[in-house]
């Protein structure tokens, strides 16, 4: 399976760990990732704050460059913001012939063009879970993440807004409020997945630079949530989220006088660990909040954890009422 691969600016250096672990696990899963030729920055949330048509043109140059890779019509982005920008531009160009015309006029000044819908733009998580399939992934697990309590953290832009999935079935990639793709992946890898209510809440993006108090609060509530639910670590799928939760954890701690110590790793790193790959080759060690104490849980034989003694409730004394459960809903 061959894909056009759009790393995005963060993956070059600040999130290099995400890049090397993505490429390593992709290889292990038989996915060929061909980097987009001479790609440029997608503009994040900054460019579109000050320019409209130019921001679409900026993004569309990448779409046009991606079409230069022969034999592929799938464009994969590991970074949620890059994914959103590429997907949105492609979608808007399909919806609005007027926009498509103008964008192409701009692109032609650089000798390029792009027709909306040519590429299927997808996030790396989508491609790994839905194209490879959880069964295949399970078959490659040699070191199950048993004993590790993980809070899966999606962030916002991978699930919102809910673009229709590119396979034409009319449904979106995952639920906008309560996604389960990463949860299911981590379960397949053998981890204990925490029901983390903040899993799709925004990390704040660049807010730490605009208003420290607001930015740090957005980070605090996520780290606190994972910690309240007794997670050993947070696993994420976006370099901005990782930078905020990991890189800014210490300044956040100082600001609030808290002392959270929650390591934050990328899902591809967990995938690689479960496949038995060497930690260093996955960029583990680049995180600012040390992950070693959490990872120790899967590095050694883990004795059966003792279940906390639940107060014995005989059937007669149990007055609790039944309730409907998620996961059984028909849309």
């Amino acid at each position, binding site marked *: 399976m061959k894909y056009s691969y759009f790393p995005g600016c963060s993956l070059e250096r600040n999130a290099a760990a995400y890049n090397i672990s993505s490429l390593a696990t992709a290889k292990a899963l038989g996915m060929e990732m061909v980097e987009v030729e001479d790609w440029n920055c997608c503009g994040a949330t900054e460019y579109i704050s000050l320019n409209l048509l130019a921001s679409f043109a900026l993004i569309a140059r990448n779409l046009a460059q991606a079409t230069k890779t022969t034999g592929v019509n799938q464009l994969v982005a590991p970074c949620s913001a890059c994914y959103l920008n590429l997907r949105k531009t492609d979608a808007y160009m399909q919806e609005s012939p007027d926009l498509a015309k103008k964008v192409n006029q701009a692109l032609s000044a650089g000798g390029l063009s792009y027709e909306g819908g040519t590429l299927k733009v997808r996030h790396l998580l989508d491609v790994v879970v839905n194209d490879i399939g959880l069964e295949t992934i399970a078959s490659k697990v040699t070191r199950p993440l048993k004993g590790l309590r993980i809070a899966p953290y999606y962030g916002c832009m991978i699930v919102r807004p809910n673009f229709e999935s590119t396979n034409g079935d009319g449904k979106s990639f995952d639920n906008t409020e309560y996604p389960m793709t990463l949860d299911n992946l981590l379960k397949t890898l053998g981890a204990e997945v925490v029901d983390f209510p903040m899993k799709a809440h925004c990390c704040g993006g660049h807010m730490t630079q605009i208003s420290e108090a607001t930015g740090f609060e957005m980070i605090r509530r996520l780290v606190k949530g994972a910690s309240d639910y007794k997670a050993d670590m947070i696993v994420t799928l976006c370099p901005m989220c990782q930078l905020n939760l990991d890189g800014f954890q210490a300044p956040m701690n100082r600001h609030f006088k808290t002392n959270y110590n929650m390591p934050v790793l990328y899902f591809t790193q967990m995938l690689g660990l479960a496949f038995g790959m060497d930690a260093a080759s996955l960029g583990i060690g680049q995180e600012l909040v040390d992950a070693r104490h959490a990872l120790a849980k899967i590095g050694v034989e883990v004795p059966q954890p003792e279940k906390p003694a639940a107060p014995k409730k005989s059937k007669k004394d149990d007055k609790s009422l*039944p*309730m409907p459960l998620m996961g059984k809903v*028909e849309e």
Partner: protein
Amino acid sequence: MNEEARIGVYVCHCGSNIAGIVDVENVAKWAAEKLGHRGVVIARDYKFMCSSLGQELIEKDIKELGLTRIVVAACSPHLHEKTFRTAAERAGLNPYLCELVSIREQVSWVHTDKIAATEKAKAAISGGVERIIHNVPLTPLRVPIDKSTLIVGGGIAGIQAALEIADAGYKVYLVEREPSVGGHMAQFDKTFPTLDCSACILTPKMVSAGTHPNISMLSWAEVTHVDGYVGNFTATIHQKPRYVKTDLCTGCGICQEKCPKKVIDDVYEAGLGYRKAIYTPFPQAVPKFPVLDKPNCTYFQKGTCKACEKFCPTDAIDFTQKDEYFDVKVGNIILATGYDLFDARRIPQYGFGRLANVFSSLEFERLSNSAGPTGGTVVLRDGVTTPKTVGIIHCVGSRDRNYNNYCSSICCMQSLKFAHLVHERTGAEVYEFYIDMRTPAKGYDEFYQRLLEEGTHFIRGKVAEVTDAARLPGEEGKLIIQVEDTLVGKQRRIPVDMVILSSGLEPRHDAKEVARLFGISCSADGWYIERHPKLDPVATMTEGVFIAGCVQGPKDIPASVVQGAAAAARVLGRIQQGEIALEPVRATINADNCSGCRICNDLCPYSAIVFHEDKMVSEVNPALCQGCGTCVAACPAGAISGTCFSDEQIMAQIEGLLLLNLKQPEAAVS
């Protein structure tokens, strides 16, 4: 057309509606002059043709001038075709020899150029004249009406309709798919705004229906097939086996007591309580006979137990009962199948299905009902703790393009009712989160004001999310409702112990299939479509099939009762008439020309075409045919013609519109 047509043309001013754009006097004069050779004997214009004076003009002319055809140029046939046809009939002319040409909706209301509009009006009338020459007198089809009625759905609307018809002395088959009648109303605790106990006002009606000599109550049954047409329906009823002999069962309830298998009751208890594998849904069930739930019965699944049989004092348990299918013949059908509650798990940010203390509206009804799983005490999901703060959220799944765009009508009042009950039972602080307060009917706004006086906190804003992720002091261990208080203009976080979601109403999950069974249609939302949204809310486009209650759209109990009674009145009217006159506008198949290709069979939206295997030709059932013309257009052999829209009529009308008829006939050359 065999005799010389004597045509009267009447051009209406409609005040200034038509006359303001079209020169009506000129048009009338033109018609008399230019179309005289086509048979126009008189052409008049008048201010309001539909008035009694206007109609009298027509009647007088018919009698005095011996008119044989009438063309009225006025508004749309939808409005007044019947008026003028009736006038013609009064004067002794067959009503189908009178037609309406629209020069209002089609001319004066859509054009501003007076000269062009006047010319267009003339062309339209010319077309009408040419067409009517080919009209033939028609008589409506008279069909006898069977005096029995089928009512599908034993909720309050169905019960009301059944009682009205049965009290009038006619037979009713009341089919209900659950073991007991009562519907959703039987689940409620109190009803707004009077706070009457729901079961107390419902059960007398249920008992009347259950004991009425004219009502055949078929519970635990469904309709599987319907054939026929108005006045003559044949419905196949599937009676599911109760595994209880109803002639022996006394309703003592011992079988339920002794049954060892407990199951979550997700119908009557809304999933909040349990029942046994053999059960009556609630103590006041009508009929009182229990039902054995085969998929959950230990005997049927594993071959052991049979406790019910052992303990039954009258030997009424019968594991050998089979499904029964039988036909009933009825003249009219009323559909009153009710609604389903919106599943709030579709809105994950409200936490239903994930956060234990978020309850749906029906769950709360069961909680506060004294016959419910907690005996009427309002407690949290642990079954023990009394809440100290409760949040009630409006518009869950309603007024929301992401789910259902419509307003569910009853939830504002229901939420107020919940607030009152919570105050009363627990003394808790109650917060209500609303977008608007919809309290239109009698006593409703007064009820809202009462709640204001009770100290309920009303926050105007659509709730963004219900979460257990605490952020601020005082939030730990609570459910936090995050909302913009729009009257204050700020975001607020309200910690509560319990959340009640006023979920919206939705059509039954199988509404579309059931509608197809009865030959009626649903709107895009899934509610059944009434014949006219303003003026005919209980009839459908299918003659003989009526709708009542929430199946037609969300509504409260009084409105459901009204619709049930209205449908019953319509049915009784039909029964009284003894027969029904159907519009003679329908298709007929010329058997000689029919090649037996059957293309028309499946195209008919009313399933009105039958194929005779022996003769290899198709035939239109005139009682079912609505005269839509689909088959006429589709027939490759041109074997189907439609009364009132024959090929000759259409061609003639076109020639008239093009004014090809103005050429005077050449003088005969001798």
